[in-house]
């Protein structure tokens, strides 16, 4: 009971009759003196204990209790007060002033008022809960709005395209968590053969993280223009960031300079995950140590050099991947990442494998805890002096950002919800209403096919939808588990034949999809069908 007393928030509603809108005979509608329409009872007020121990009428002038609240009631002219109690909790007081006839309240009056108090309590309780819910809904809405703003800031500051370098391949995957974190990356072309690469993670989330991200990015860019040494760049950025960064916030960061003619990589590290280097002899960490930016002034940053040989690649990553938890609360961890990296693959394939492995590890119902950034740097085998049979294998991947990732159970009618959520996830792209409606139809039809034909409407077999963009195009990839037949070629349905009964009236889905988007591709492997829809943004 004591614990409950502490948690009580005590609002005292005064002016009994008018408060409950029940006409009360002969009660003064406005007691003389001050206003008690809203006052808080301190949790240590003895009146509280008294009420909880002896519910029923309080005759204010007769009760002898050293209670400030009781004194307040007296001062405002309250003569009798009826506690309104619901589910053992005091939720208000029904306060009455003097009778208009100036007679004492009778036993009958007490009984009537007590009945009223008993009946009013649950109604008041419901009203209070409704009020609280309204406030909570407003708060949630504000929070969502904040998240949207944070995400827009973050997206705006990321590079619009990945530098295209002969004999080098760069690929990035950036996937913000719902509660936007502070991951970012950047490319700075320092000279013809020197490219600066930044990957960083601001602690905290939402708008504060986005603001610190914006500042750090500018400081790093300015420092990179002024200093050739990665260690100096981090030291300078740290000294400038330190006085301005809010308390308890800091930035982990890795800064690399690649000499694209020789493969020499110089880098320095401010508390970020180490880069992983894949060579023919296995995967190794490239070590360099230093404090995160913004924690302490005057820091030195160790500088390390390594050379990326043709055929080798480097992976930079943020915490979001290795610190993802599965349902048993185990972490994804570096060993798993290292293991996946040993397999022969290019950067984009590696990113795909890591994300697949993450999806397998976390299982369904996974809500991404933190931003995930993966950045791969590869030096092509076809670099000068090294003959290669596969000169065209190295493509410079364009950076793709994931806007949303969904999984839906396969059930009749489920496509509508899927299309609605996809549309919600691309709000920031500001597509016209016409294009949104077209996309809605295309996504709904592709999801309908995936649920009905691909997954045979088995509710426990999900349809996976990934929404991403590289700023040129919007991509929506809808994947089923391929249990049914493969996706047929899209043909032009013949309405005349259908009307003449020579063809099934059905078979419109793929035709509609194809006409609603700019591009449609289908792919399949042994376990999945994927239909990829693309919309041109430029």
């Amino acid at each position: 009971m004591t614990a409950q007393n502490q948690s009580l928030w005590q609002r005292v509603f005064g002016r009994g009759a008018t408060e409950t809108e029940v006409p009360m005979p002969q009660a003064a509608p406005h007691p003389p003196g001050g206003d008690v329409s809203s006052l808080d009872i301190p949790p240590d007020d003895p009146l509280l204990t008294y009420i909880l121990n002896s519910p029923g009428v309080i005759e204010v002038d007769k009760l002898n209790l050293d209670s400030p609240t009781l004194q307040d009631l007296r001062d405002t002219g309250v003569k009798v007060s009826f506690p309104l109690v619901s589910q053992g909790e005091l939720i208000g007081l029904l306060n009455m002033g003097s009778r208009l006839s100036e007679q004492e309240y009778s036993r009958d009056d007490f009984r009537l008022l007590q009945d009223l108090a008993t009946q009013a309590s649950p109604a008041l309780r419901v009203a209070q809960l409704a009020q609280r819910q309204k406030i909570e809904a407003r708060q949630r809405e504000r929070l969502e709005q904040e998240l949207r703003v944070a995400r827009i800031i973050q997206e705006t500051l990321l590079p619009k395209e990945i530098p295209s370098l002969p004999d080098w391949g760069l690929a990035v995957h950036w996937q913000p968590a719902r509660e936007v974190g502070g991951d970012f990356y950047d490319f700075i072309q320092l000279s013809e053969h020197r490219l600066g690469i930044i990957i960083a993670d601001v602690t905290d989330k939402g708008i504060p993280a986005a603001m610190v991200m914006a500042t750090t990015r500018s400081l790093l860019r300015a420092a990179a223009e002024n200093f050739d040494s990665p260690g100096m760049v981090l030291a300078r950025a740290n000294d400038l960031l330190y006085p301005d960064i809010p308390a308890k916030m800091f930035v982990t960061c890795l800064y690399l300079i690649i000499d694209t003619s020789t493969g020499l990589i110089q880098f320095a590290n401010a508390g970020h995950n180490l880069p992983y280097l894949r060579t023919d002899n296995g995967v190794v960490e490239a070590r360099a140590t230093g404090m995160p930016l913004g924690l302490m002034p005057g820091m030195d940053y160790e500088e390390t050099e390594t050379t990326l040989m043709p055929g080798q690649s480097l992976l930079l990553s943020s915490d979001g991947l290795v610190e993802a938890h599965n349902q048993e609360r185990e972490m994804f961890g570096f060993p798993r990442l290292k293991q996946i990296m040993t397999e022969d693959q290019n950067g984009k394939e590696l990113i795909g494998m890591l994300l697949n492995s993450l999806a397998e590890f976390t299982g369904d119902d996974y809500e991404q805890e933190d931003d995930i950034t993966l950045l791969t740097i590869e030096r092509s085998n076809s670099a000068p002096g090294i003959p290669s049979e596969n000169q065209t294998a190295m493509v410079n991947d364009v950076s793709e950002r994931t806007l949303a990732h969904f999984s839906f159970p396969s059930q009749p009618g489920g496509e509508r919800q899927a299309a609605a959520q996809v549309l919600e996830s691309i709000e920031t792209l500001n597509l016209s209403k016409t294009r949104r409606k077209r996309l809605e139809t295309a996504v709904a039809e592709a999801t309908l096919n995936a649920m009905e034909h691909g997954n045979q409407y088995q509710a426990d077999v999900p349809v996976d939808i990934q929404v991403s963009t590289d700023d040129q195009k919007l991509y929506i990839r809808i994947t089923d588990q391929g249990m049914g037949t493969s996706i047929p070629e899209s043909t032009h349905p013949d309405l005349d034949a259908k009307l003449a009964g020579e063809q099934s009236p059905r078979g419109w889905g793929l035709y509609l999809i194809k006409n609603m988007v700019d591009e449609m591709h289908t792919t399949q492997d042994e376990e999945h069908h994927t239909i990829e829809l693309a919309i041109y943004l430029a």
Partner: protein
Amino acid sequence: MVDPTFQVKVRYQEDKAILDLSGEINAFADPALMAAFSEAESKDPDTFVLNFEEVDYINSTGIALIVELLAQVRKSKKSMVVYGLSDHYVEIFKLTRLADFMTIYDSQASALAV
């Protein structure tokens, strides 16, 4: 959000049967739509009018249902017109060439004036 459940009511005006459709036209709409159409057919109207004003979603299965209705209407040498389609679904009716076989009107007044 509009109630997604499909509903249909049939009314008659002169030689026209008007099917007032509401909700989503997808596989779930099949039985109710076919039943309403049979009911309208039994009154032997010259023209069937589909009112889409309260319809917010038509998927490919819904298009197939409309094709089925249109095929039956044409078989009995009657005609079918529609009104109340949003711009998006007007585009789809043109794309599927349904618009070649049924006139699309903007409003009930123009659809019933013919």
